[in-house]
């Protein structure tokens, strides 16, 4: 084995190459890998955040949907109640109106009947006197029988 200056030359070359690699090569790749690692970590974190956001948005939308359904149901119920109420009211009013019309008609009928009675009553004494005169064959003193005639009219 011929050991000679080559061994020193190789030692120097080794030192220089190690220095060069340490100074100019290694950091380039270390930085790139570091940067990529960071980017990936950030990406994953952002994805996790987005997923969380999506979840909360879904939850929120479901809540809102539920709320909307509940309020729609409330509105419908209210409307139903209101319509029933309106119908009720209308029915009541109609009944009242009908009663009123009936009462008015009854009153009118009664009045009519009363008037007819009054008229009848006014004429009953005349009819009675005329009848009696026919029966007796002579005039009846109306004034003398005034009380009896009035009593008869009132009994009618």
């Amino acid at each position: 084995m011929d050991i000679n200056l080559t061994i020193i030359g190789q030692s120097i070359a080794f030192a220089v190459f190690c220095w060069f690699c340490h100074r100019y090569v290694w950091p380039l790749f270390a930085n790139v890998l570091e940067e990529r690692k960071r980017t990936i970590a950030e990406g994953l974190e952002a994805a996790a955040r987005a997923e969380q956001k999506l979840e909360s948005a879904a939850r929120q939308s479901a809540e809102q949907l539920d709320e909307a359904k509940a309020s729609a149901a409330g509105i419908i119920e209210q409307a139903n109640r209101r319509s029933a109420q309106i119908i009720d009211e209308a029915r009541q009013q109609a009944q009242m109106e009908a009663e009123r019309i009936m009462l008015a008609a009854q009153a009118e009928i009664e009045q009519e009947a009363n008037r007819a009675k009054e008229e009848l009553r006014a004429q009953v004494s005349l009819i009675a006197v005329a009848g009696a005169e026919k029966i007796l064959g002579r005039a009846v003193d109306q004034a003398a029988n005034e009380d009896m005639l009035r009593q008869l009219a009132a009994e009618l």
Partner: protein
Amino acid sequence: MAAAGAESQTVQEYIVHHLSYLTFGRHPDGHWGFAHSPEEASEMGFMAIHVDTMGWSIALGAAFLLWFRRVGLRASASNPGAIQNFVESIFEFVDNRVSEGFTHKNSLIGPMALTIFVWVLLMNAMDLVPVDWITGIAAWVGEHVFGFDHMPFKIVPTTDPNITMGMSLSIFVLIIWYSIKHKGLGGFLGELAFHPFGKWMVPFNLMIEIPTMLAKPISLGLRLFGNLYAGELLFLLIAGLLGLWQLPAHFVWAVFHILVVPLQAFVFMMLTIVYLNAAHEPAH
């Protein structure tokens, strides 16, 4: 592939040629120049440099780092391209091994592990280039352009012990540096002297612990060298001895070697991480 060499060389010469380095150094007479034969190269002793393996080593390391830097500068966190994905997968692979194996804080370990893994992988992978392609072209250029007969040109840096030991010794220096830094000089020497048998057995402890310590860088460097050298040598033997039969043999050995190439790069990186992690443990 061996045919071109075999015309003018014996198999032995062919293999020796392929195992020689293009060596530039100080000749015994004092002037500097290329060694024109293995004998001349060994006469130069320590004052020489393997131009081929050193050059390939630096070229591959620089190519890897500049390419990674280029990809890194254009990298985008949100929209990575295919090339960026590829480089990032290597980066993440190394980064994961470091975070598993290294439990302390030191920003140098990651870049060092990445450098070791990719650089050693590339140097090992040169083993898969057929043995005569580049070496043959270089020998032809050497002979016809520079008048350099039988110019050797080794292209697999990790078959040169200088290359593997250069790295493992650098790591050894770091192990000692961080040991002293984190355990204190006393703690570091204490671990050598008072383990495993307490203070009455100091010489015996040192006899165990010092070789243990030295074995780490030596085994680290020689394991890589040995695996790749053996692999390369077998490619050369196949090329030199088998004639036409070398084609299926090369294929089989190359497939096996595809496993060895990344495995040895991985082992070198893992052991570096483990050794340096141990160096960061506080003294006990």
